């Protein structure tokens, strides 16, 4: 749960805040990040970006993800942020920004499937099922929606609050979609077994639906971890 203090600042999710930052300024990946697909960089003197491109096959992926896993039962909140995220085109791809286990049986992801009007926050369960929460934030424009509402060239943060910053018995895991200090999406309450703890990985993943090469581009990837 996000609660703001009297000045409008978010009450910290825990006493200890750690942050991993990949800024792509030097044309290399930091040792905590791995990539799937073909990466290209625009290092200094450019502004520092990475572009990851899929093969030109249907179902191919481009991924940017954390090598290490985070045990969600040991932390109060995890956030993954993509700065200046850009996708090449609004069709023929599915995109997700996740904080989820490798077997998709724990954690959550913010997911937008090809040709769907709405994005979803998906909460995974240990039995392999999941629960979707429709969101009014989307990655890309689809048919019937006016304007470019895409996440193109935007900051995007997916925040998972494990609920462990609250007293025992009052935990309410929740997921928030935002940018900077703003929030435009919420799956506010994942309690009652909707949220499954696990060893989770932060990732950005693009999947093609047609035999075309697609890419995403971003200027920074950040992972924030809070605990007490």
């Amino acid at each position, binding site marked *: 749960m996000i609660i*703001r203090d009297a000045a409008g600042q978010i009450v910290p999710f825990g006493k200890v805040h750690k942050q991993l930052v990949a800024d792509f300024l030097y044309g290399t990946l930091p040792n905590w990040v791995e990539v799937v697909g073909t990466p290209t960089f625009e290092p200094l003197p450019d502004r520092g970006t990475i572009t990851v491109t899929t093969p030109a096959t249907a179902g191919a992926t481009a991924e940017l993800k954390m090598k290490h896993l985070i045990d969600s039962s040991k932390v109060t909140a995890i956030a993954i942020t993509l700065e200046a995220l850009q996708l090449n085109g609004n069709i023929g791809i599915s995109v997700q920004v996740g904080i989820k286990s490798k077997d998709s049986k724990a954690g959550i992801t913010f997911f937008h499937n090809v040709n769907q009007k709405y994005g979803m926050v998906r909460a995974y369960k240990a039995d392999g099922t999941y629960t979707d929460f429709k969101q009014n934030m*989307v990655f890309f424009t689809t048919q019937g929606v*006016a304007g470019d509402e895409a996440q193109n060239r935007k900051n995007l943060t997916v925040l998972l609050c494990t609920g462990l910053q609250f007293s025992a018995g009052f935990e309410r895991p929740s997921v928030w979609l935002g940018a900077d200090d703003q929030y435009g999406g*919420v799956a506010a309450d994942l309690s009652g077994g909707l949220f499954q703890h696990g060893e989770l990985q932060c990732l950005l993943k693009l999947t093609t639906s047609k035999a075309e090469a697609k890419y995403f581009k971003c200027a920074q990837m950040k992972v924030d971890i809070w605990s007490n």
Partner: protein
Amino acid sequence: MSMTENIAQAALDAAMKANRAIAPYDYCDAESRRMYTPQFDKKMDNPIYTAAMAGLQSIYWFRAIKVKGLIPDAKADYYATYSTNHNRIGGIGLAYSNSPTGPWTKHGQVYLDTVVGNSTETPFVIWNDEEQLFFMYYQQNGLGINQSTALATSVDMINWTRVGLILDKPPGFPGDGHTGYFSCFRNGGKWIGFSVMGGGDFGRKCIWHSHDGRSWLADPRPLMGGNDATLSAEENISRPNAGVFMYKGSMWWLGMLSAYASGGVTTVARPAIAKISADFRQLLDKPSDIYFPALNWETTNMQSLMVSVMDGVVYVYYNTDHNIGVAYSVGV
């Protein structure tokens, strides 16, 4: 009652008033707390103005300002501007009254931008005391990248001089280039305004900053729907279609809670109020509904809600469908 009892009663009354006056917020009873929350009433009558009265098929962004002392030989003490609602041509009209609550008399159309683009709508007029001019911001389809905010100036609010494009999407910002629906206010010497940053149902909003009302800097952190305040993915808060004002030491937002919708489609919206942070980016708590008693002409299709503070009273001009109503703050 004896003289002694009278004196005692007077002393008690004085003490109670003093207590109310110094009651700290919070640690006080519910009645005292109301003193620190703006309370509103509304004109329980027919619409104060309508599209039909304006001779239009639709009406939008009706907002009054006080012009007494600013315009020699003004038609009345208060002028209101308005436009059509998502009309292909648009046009900005003027009405006048000697009271913020009306009755309002139609003057008629005072401005239509035919230089570039079309759909001249959503006027927002503010007095620039440094230039001794009325500034009118409006949106124009086909201007700038997409549908952008433009400026016109006037000395009498009837004859306007087009300045042209004033807000356009900076490179790398989200959205399709729509920077319309602009409203602004003065915060000390600074100018602060809100606009959309991209159109569509889920477009972002933007805070703009200026020293003169002409050259504006867009805050690169676009605003979103405030879902950490509404606690619902389905409902967002309005930004330019709203207002901010100071009340008893706190800054407040008064705007609409609504479904994510755009383009003038029929929607469900309602007025609400909440404290807002000093940087105008965050509501500090879940907005509270302002439960207006419903009038027989009102519907849930609230299309615009404009705030204007005049003579120390917060006026809220709202339109449902094609009819305008007004609410106003009352002392507690």
